[in-house]
């Protein structure tokens, strides 16, 4: 089968039973070099899934193929799969250098080779100054960097990250998120990253798979997940938001413009480079004429969809890209909106939320 060769990891009909958690007929395919994000609510059994792939949990049925090789008979130490837990799991009795070196020490590599590789990875992850500290004196972000270095030093064929940013404060989480993206660009390691955080998934994933009750309910590029949620669960879990990816351009007068394929939007941020932007549907105002107001962004577009959502009406306007905004029923009537009509759409620069690339 072609799919087995092209894909780095193929999971077929996996069955795992672990008391209160139960996985049945589970299938998963991750392409070579892909950054694959599994997004699901807390307690959806994501940790058990990753541990099963790594051979750390007994599997009741199904096959796990890594680069075409069936892993079922292999113990975890022979699978070549790196694992990073949410709460770091650094060995508390070893210092940072010894932690990172652990995998190579086991192989009996010469001390000089180990020291060189450790220094190299510590450099790459920005923890070169911490090598002689013991884990408990490190901050959460530093510990997670050390855990990443420890996993990467043995050059795993597949890297499994179990909510690696969830235990960190927002700022550290964001900076480590950018680090993960950079590492993936530089090393190209096939990665499965599990998270419950939607912005993290968008910012990192080549593809996102949404997990619910032991099944992947939708798999696709981030854009697609948010634009066309396949089930009500996905829609509710990812929320109805406007998400865009673009390049930031700083202007002289202190503003930034986010360059989307067709338009530039004014935003307020101190970030630079490639980022994502989200905009709440409640923050968009529709009008017949362009507004002369404090709303910095005003575009003309065409209504492509009008849908009821409880007390609100969701109106999708394509400029392009498509923006979804919610308005009241009375506004719908007063403005005489219908699909196909052209309309002006305004939102304030301060209403655009910029997050990591």
């Amino acid at each position, binding site marked *: 089968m072609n799919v087995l060769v092209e894909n780095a990891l193929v999971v077929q009909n996996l069955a795992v039973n672990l008391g209160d958690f139960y996985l049945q007929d589970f299938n998963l395919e991750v392409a070579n070099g892909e950054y694959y994000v599994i997004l699901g609510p807390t307690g959806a059994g994501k940790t058990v899934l990753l*541990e099963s792939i*790594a*051979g*750390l949990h007994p599997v009741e049925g199904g096959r796990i193929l890594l680069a075409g090789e069936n892993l079922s008979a292999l*113990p*975890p*130490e022979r*699978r070549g*799969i*790196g*694992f990073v*837990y949410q709460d770091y*799991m650094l*060995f*508390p*009795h070893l210092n940072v250098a010894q932690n990172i070196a*652990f*995998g190579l020490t*086991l*192989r009996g590599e010469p001390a000089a080779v180990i020291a060189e590789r450790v220094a190299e990875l510590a450099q790459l992850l920005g923890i070169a100054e911490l090598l002689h500290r013991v884990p408990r004196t490190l901050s959460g972000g530093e510990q997670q960097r050390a855990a990443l270095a*420890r*996993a990467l030093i*043995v050059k*795993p064929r597949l890297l499994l990250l179990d909510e690696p940013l969830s235990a960190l404060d927002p700022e550290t989480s964001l900076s480590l998120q950018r680090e993960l993206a950079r590492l993936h660009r530089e090393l190209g390691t096939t990665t499965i990253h599990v998270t419950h955080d939607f912005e993290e998934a968008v910012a990192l994933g080549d593809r996102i798979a949404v997990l619910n009750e032991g099944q992947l309910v939708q798999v696709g590029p981030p854009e697609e997940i948010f634009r066309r949620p396949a089930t009500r669960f996905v829609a509710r879990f990812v929320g109805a938001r406007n998400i865009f990816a673009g390049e930031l351009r700083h202007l002289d007068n202190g503003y930034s413009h986010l360059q989307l394929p067709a338009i530039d939007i004014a935003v307020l941020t101190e970030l630079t480079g490639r980022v994502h932007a989200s905009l709440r549907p409640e923050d968009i105002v529709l009008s017949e004429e362009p507004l002369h107001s404090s709303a910095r962004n005003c575009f003309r577009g065409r209504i492509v969809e009008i849908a009821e959502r409880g007390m609100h009406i969701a109106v999708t306007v394509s400029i392009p890209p498509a923006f979804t905004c919610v308005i009241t029923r009375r506004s719908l009537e007063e403005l005489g909106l219908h699909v196909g009509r052209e309309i002006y759409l305004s939102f304030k620069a301060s209403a655009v939320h910029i997050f990591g690339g």
Partner: protein
Amino acid sequence: MKSLLADKMCVTFVFLGALLFFFLAWPLFKTVTASSPALLWETLLEVEVRNAILRTFYASFLATAIAFFLGVPLAYMLARTEFPGQELVQGLIDLPIVVPHSAAGIALLMFFGRRMWLGRLFERVGIRFVSNFPGIVIALLFVSLSFLVNAAREGFEAVDPRLERVARTLGASPWQAFWRISFPLAWHSILSGLILMWARGLSEFGAVVILVYHPMVAPVLIYERFESFGLNYARPVAALLILICLAVFVLLRLTARKRGAG
């Protein structure tokens, strides 16, 4: 929290607690102070006393060493795996605490006696248990094993199994994960268990006196002197032994505290 233990209740509780305190402390204190340091030193120089104490130390050390090799793996399995009959095994480990030690001595005699199957087997390779040094080791092992196994089990239970799992993904065999991760991390607990078991072995009397009256361990010597010569001859030996146990006990507490801090 002083405000919670106000007035009458506080006074009552302190009084009752103090009664107990003096009941425990005073006899021990009196025994130790009744003999002058010179007398204690003299007693220690007696060949019979010194030999008995050294024999006790050594036998308890050997029992502890055997327990280390057999008991630490068992403790690890009790902490990490689930197997049928686990509760039975754990119960059996705890049993020697409540079995009368003279009955335990009888039981061991039934097993290792010269006319018994196992006793004869060992006798063929030159090891005799009854009224012989190996019998002391066996008796101490039987009655104080549970202290080490329980301490080691608690130590292993405190090690996050995910640390072992991470080590496995980094290429460690189960054996390497045990020696490089779990064992070093549980070491302080195991060490406490070893000291406690050794100290407990020093104090054993009931099982030993039945299996091996001669050669005498220190607690048997105290009994022998008391029975043959009376209180005044037994007292200095008792004082010596109490002092030694006190020292070991303080060492144990310090180890435990260090573990708490580390």
